């Protein structure tokens, strides 16, 4: 079951709906579902997500070697996007966060390659400089302001929840 064409009617930019494994997003999908035909799509959509996205296992560099893939170490922060790179080998985003002392910290976070992210409903237009971002990352082992994306919301809308997939796959490698 990997029929991605099933998802075409539900692209997030068209309908404001996305698909994900997280409970809150399932709720959001149901909110988005109006016509009966879309409701019919819900089950295969989630099934396809369960079976297919989780298969994108090996990054070409070891994510577990670079990041602390542990739910208790995740960091969540909000800021303003300064850059978005849609390209191989991995899509990544830069953003500025104002810390408790009022200093602006420049952060970078990577996610999966474009051909995988497109299956998550992303495109080169999903994130733009100036967007408000709320992001959860698995932090870099080296301790700098870098991370591996777990969840992302752009301008208040969740566009990716990769947490469970990362926890399930990256830790087996």
């Amino acid at each position, binding site marked *: 079951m*990997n*029929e*991605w*064409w*099933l998802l*075409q*009617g539900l692209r997030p930019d068209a309908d404001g709906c996305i698909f994900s494994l997280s409970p809150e997003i399932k709720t959001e999908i149901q909110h988005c579902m109006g016509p*009966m*035909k*879309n409701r*019919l*799509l819900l089950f*295969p959509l989630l099934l396809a997500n369960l079976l297919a996205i*989780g*298969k*994108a*296992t*090996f990054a*070409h*560099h*070891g994510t*577990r*070697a*670079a*990041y602390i893939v542990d739910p208790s170490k995740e960091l969540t922060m909000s800021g303003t996007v300064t850059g978005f*790179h849609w*390209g*191989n*080998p*991995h899509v*990544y985003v830069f953003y500025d966060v104002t810390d408790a002392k009022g200093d602006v910290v420049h952060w*970078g976070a*990577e996610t999966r*390659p474009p*051909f995988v992210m*497109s299956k998550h409903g992303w495109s080169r237009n999903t994130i733009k400089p100036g967007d408000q971002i709320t992001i959860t990352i698995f932090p*870099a*082992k*080296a*301790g*700098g*302001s*870098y*991370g591996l994306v777990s969840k992302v919301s752009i301008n208040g809308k969740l566009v990716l929840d990769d947490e469970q997939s990362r926890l*399930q*796959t*990256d*830790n*087996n*490698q």
Partner: protein
Amino acid sequence: MLKPFQVSLAALAVALSLSLLYSPHALAQAGQKPEAAREAPHRPGTRAFDPHDLSGVWEHEGIGGTIASEPVPPMTAWGKAKFDAAKPGFGPRRVPPTEDNDPILICDPQGFPRAMSLENPEPMEFIQIRGRILQFMEWNRNWRTIWIDGRDLPKDLDPRWYGYSVGKWEGDTLVVRTAGLDDRTWLDPYGDPHSDALRVEERYRRVNHETMEFTMKVDDPNAYTRPWMLVKMKVLKLNPKYEIQEAICAPSDEKTFNKDITIPADTPAPAK
């Protein structure tokens, strides 16, 4: 009192609703793919197929981030030295990306047999034409040729990233032998080595229309003390609707990524 044509209309409406709810092809219709809607329904495993035709887009079933290989047998001294020089980003010997010397990180070809290992979850498209099978792998946009016109492996092959492959049907199993392999490639993301004396035997068996079984044995007396199964079993599923995507390792992309992310993410934060 309903007039007959109203009853017919109501019945038609109910029938249409039911067909929409219960027909698997309602999904195809909702997805606006008329060609899918026209396909006859069938139960998995019941559709007719030619066991000697492996054409189609095949996806890997059941990949969960582990490689179902046999345990690696003891290495020779030569193999062990090569293994120790490999610094992988995965497995128990993993190192951070800036120390990782996996050849694919500089966009060297994955090569064979690694491209057919369990490492890649991405689909492949097989095209079978007279005398040969072409395998197109989504990952890194690779392809290889398997000659099935009865020829034998040439002697004294020069090493190549994808070697030279010949296949022969043994009943309904296609047995593919490969030699002439470049020893710069790793067998897997864990840095298991091989020499240019490596011989690989793959077995493909289409068990029904939508399912193919795949195994791969590696035999390299220079590196290992016995042959072993690099892939004990991989189940491939046919997906006629999938379009192969572009996933290319381009050196310029890699350079940008390393400058922007890999190196700074791997650099210890300055003390505050």
